[in-house]
C-alpha cells in the first residue's frame, strides 16, 4: 500500500500564534482516515497546507506524490474538497454550483450526481443565499462525492447535517472506500469517526499525539474490567496486581482498568479467584480522545 498523504514536521505560524508545531500525517491509499482534534488544534490549517492554499513555514511531504504548494493545480485534478464552513455564491443555485465545481474539477459523474441529489433530498433550484447551513453542506458534498477523484478531503462535513443525512453520508463514504477512494475526514464527532474510519490521527496544539488504527489506539489504552468473583481480593491486593488502575472493591465485585499488555495476566489472576461474571470493555474513542486532552501532568 502506498501513502496518499505523507507530510512530516509541518510548522506554520500566523504572527505570534503557532498553528502547527511539527505535525506529521500519513494517510494510506484506500482508507478513510479520521483527523480528530478540538477547535483550534490545527486541523483546518493542516488541510489548507495539504491543498496548497497555505505554505508551511517548515516541513516536507507530498499529497498524491506531489508537492502541494508547488504543484497545487495538478494535485487538485485528483482531489475534491469540502470546506468546514461551506459558503456558496449567493446568486447561484445549488445545481449551478454543483455543475460549476464539477466542471472546474474536470468532470462529474452524472448518474452519481442525480442519485446523490435525490438521496440528500436537495432542492437544486434554490439560490446559495437561501440555503441553510446543512443544505449548503449538502451542495458541497454532492459536488465532491460525485467527482471522479481518488482523494476526498472533508473538513467537518457533517456538522450541519441531521442524523438521517449523516447516515446517508456514511453509507456513501463506505461505498467510495469500497471503490478504492481515499478520504481524509476531519471531524470532532467521535461516533462518526468510529463508524467510518479505518485509521485516525489525533491532533493537539499543532502536532499529532496519536496515529493508527482504532485497534492500535485502543491497545495503547486501558481496558475497563468489571468482575463478580467467588473470593474477591482486597483493594490493596487488586491495586498491587501489575498494570491495574482505578481499582475499587465492593463485596464480591471488583472494578478496575488495566493496561492493554497486562489484560491477559489480569484475566488469569481473576480466574484463580473464581469468576462468576466478567466484562471487559475496550476504551471508546471518546475515552481515547479525552485521555489525550486531559492536561498533561507536568
Amino acid at each position: 500500500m502506498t501513502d496518499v498523504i505523507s507530510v512530516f514536521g509541518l510548522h506554520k505560524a500566523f504572527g505570534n500564534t503557532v498553528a502547527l508545531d511539527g505535525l506529521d500525517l500519513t494517510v494510506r491509499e484506500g482508507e478513510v482516515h479520521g483527523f480528530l482534534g478540538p477547535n483550534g488544534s490545527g486541523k483546518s490549517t493542516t488541510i489548507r497546507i495539504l491543498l496548497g492554499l497555505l505554505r508551511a513555514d517548515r516541513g516536507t511531504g507530498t499529497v498524491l506524490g506531489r508537492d502541494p504548494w508547488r504543484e497545487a493545480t495538478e494535485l487538485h485534478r485528483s482531489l475534491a474538497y469540502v470546506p468546514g464552513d461551506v459558503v456558496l455564491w449567493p446568486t447561484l443555485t445549488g445545481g449551478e454550483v454543483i455543475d460549476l465545481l464539477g466542471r472546474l474539477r474536470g468532470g462529474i459523474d452524472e448518474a452519481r450526481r442525480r442519485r446523490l441529489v435525490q438521496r440528500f433530498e436537495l432542492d437544486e433550484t434554490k439560490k446559495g443565499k437561501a440555503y441553510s447551513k446543512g443544505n449548503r453542506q449538502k451542495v458541497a458534498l454532492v459536488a465532491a462525492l460525485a467527482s471522479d477523484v481518488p482523494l476526498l478531503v472533508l473538513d467537518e462535513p457533517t456538522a450541519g447535517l441531521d442524523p438521517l443525512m449523516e447516515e446517508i453520508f456514511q453509507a456513501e463514504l463506505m461505498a467510495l472506500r469500497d471503490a478504492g477512494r481515499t478520504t481524509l475526514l476531519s471531524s470532532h464527532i467521535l461516533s462518526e469517526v468510529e463508524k467510518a474510519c479505518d485509521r485516525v490521527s489525533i491532533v493537539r496544539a499543532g502536532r499529532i499525539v496519536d496515529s493508527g488504527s482504532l485497534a492500535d489506539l485502543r491497545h495503547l489504552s486501558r481496558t475497563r474490567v468489571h468482575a463478580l468473583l467467588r473470593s474477591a481480593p482486597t483493594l490493596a491486593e487488586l491495586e498491587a496486581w501489575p498494570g491495574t488502575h482505578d481499582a475499587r472493591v465492593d463485596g464480591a465485585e471488583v472494578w478496575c482498568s488495566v493496561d492493554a499488555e497486562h489484560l491477559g495476566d489480569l484475566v488469569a489472576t481473576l480466574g484463580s479467584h473464581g469468576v462468576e461474571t466478567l466484562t471487559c470493555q475496550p476504551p471508546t474513542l471518546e475515552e481515547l480522545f479525552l485521555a489525550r486532552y486531559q492536561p498533561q501532568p507536568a
Partner: protein
Amino acid sequence: MTTRLAGAPDLLRLAWRRDRILVPASVIGLVVLSVGSAQTTLELYPDDESAAAGLAGILTNPSIIAMYGPLASQTADALAVFKTVMMGAFLVAVLGFVVVRRHTRTEEDEGRLELLGSGVVGRWSPLAAAVTLATVAVVAASALSAAGLAALGMDVPGSVAFGVAWLAAGLATVGVTAVAVQLASTTRGAAGLGFGFLAAAYALRALADSADDGSVLHALGWLSPLGWAGRVEAYGANRQWVLLLGLATLVAGVVVGVAVLERRDLGAGLIPARTGPARAGRILSGPLGLVTRMARGTIVGWTLGLTLGGVVVGSLLGSVADLADDPVVSDFLEQLGGSAGTVEDIFVSTELGFISAAVAAAGVALALRLVGSERSGLGEVVLSTPTSRLRWYAANVAVPLALTTFLMVVLGVVLGVVGPAVTELAPSLGESVGASLAKLPAVWVLIAVAAALGGAVPRFAPFAWAVLLVTFLVGELGPSMQLPSWILDASPFTHLSQLPGGTFEVVPSLALVAVTAVLVVLGGVAYLHRDVA
C-alpha cells in the same frame, strides 16, 4: 416601545466602535472638500465683480447646471461652493447610505445580527442605532462645513444654507435607506436599491434643473433629495426650510422601515429570494466564466447606465452650441476640462472625464472581488479545484479591464450617434469613440491598483477606493485649486490626451498602459507566493 429598543445604546456604541475611523475620516474629507475648494476659489475670485463678470454667464448654461445644479446667485460666495453643493450632497448621501446599511442589512446578511438578536436586543434596536449614527455623521459633515465656510468670512446665512443643502440630502437618504434595507433581503440588493435611488434622484434633478423655470419638469425636481440641495440656493435665496423636507423624509423612512420590520422575519426582506435553474449554463465552465457570471448584474446595469449617459450628453450638445461664440465660455470650460478645440469638443472631453471616473469605480469594485471572495471563503473553494492561482487572478483582473473597455466603447458609440443627430457641430462617431477610448488608460491604472493591492496585500485592498476618490478629486478640483503640479501629475487622469479636439499623445498613454501592466504583474506574482485563506 422600550423593549423594542432594548440594547440600542449598546449597539450604537458597537457601531461607533466599528466606524470610529470611517465616519470621522469621511466627515473630515467632506469638510476639506467644501471649505478647501471654497477657499481656493475665493483666492482666485476675491469679490463679486470678478466672479460675476467672468463666470455668471456660463453658469446659467443648461449643460453645466445639469451637472452641478443651479447657481444660487452671481456672487463670489455662490461661485465658491457651486461645484461642492451637489458633489458634496451626493457624497453625504452616500455616507448616510453606507453607514445605515453596514449596521443593518449587512449584519443580518452575514448572520452576525442573529447572534446579537438572541441577546437582550429589541427588534428596532439595530435600525435605531444605525440611523442614529448615520444621522450624527451627516449632521457633523454638514454643520462643520457650514461653520468652516462661515469662518472663511463667507455670508453666514448662506453658509447655514449650504449646511442645510447637504443635510437635507443626507437625512433623506438615511430615511430611504432605512426602508431599502428592510425591503431587500441581501446586502447587494440593498446596494441596488440605495444607489438606484441616488442615481434616479441625480438624473431627475439634472433633467429638472435644465428645464425652463415654471415648467412641470422643473417642478418635478422637488421630488429629488439631490434636487433640494440645489434648490436651497445657498448664498442666494437661502431656503433654510428645505431642511424640513429632509427631516420629513427621514421620519417617514424610519416609520415605514419600522413597520416593515414588524412584519418580516429575521434574515428575510419583502423582496423574496427567487429560485433559479437546477443546472448551470455553459458560461459556468471556468474561472473566467464564473467571474463574468458573477458580474452579470454589474455588466447589465452599467451598460444601460452608460447608454443613457451617452444619450444625455449627446442631447446636451445642442444647447452647448448656442454658446459657441462666447469666448468666456471656452475659457471656463477649458478650466474644467483643460482641453482645446471647439466648445463641443471641450464639453464632450469634460463629460467623458466624469463618466470615465465612474466607470473606473465599476472596474475597481470588480477587481476587489478577488479579495472579497478570498474573505468569504469562495476563493478557497475555487482554488481547491484544478484552477490555478494565476488563472483565478487573471480572470479577476481581465473581467474589469474588459468590461470598462466595453463600457467606454458603448459610451463613445452612443455619443457618436446621438451627438451628430442633434447638432452638426458634435464630434463624429469616430472622434467620439476615439475620445472615449483615450480615457481608458487612466481607468486601467486604477483597476491595476486594486488588482495589485488585492494580489499583494489584501488587507489594504480597500485603499484602492481612496486612490480612486483622490485621483478623481485632484483631477476635478486640482486645477482650480491650483495644487502643485506634482500632485496633479500623480493622477493618471492628468496624463490623458485631450480628445476630441486635441491630438492623441502616444507616449503618456503608453506609459499609463505600462504602469497598468507592471502593477498587474506585481500583484499576480505576489498572489502566487502568498497564503490564500
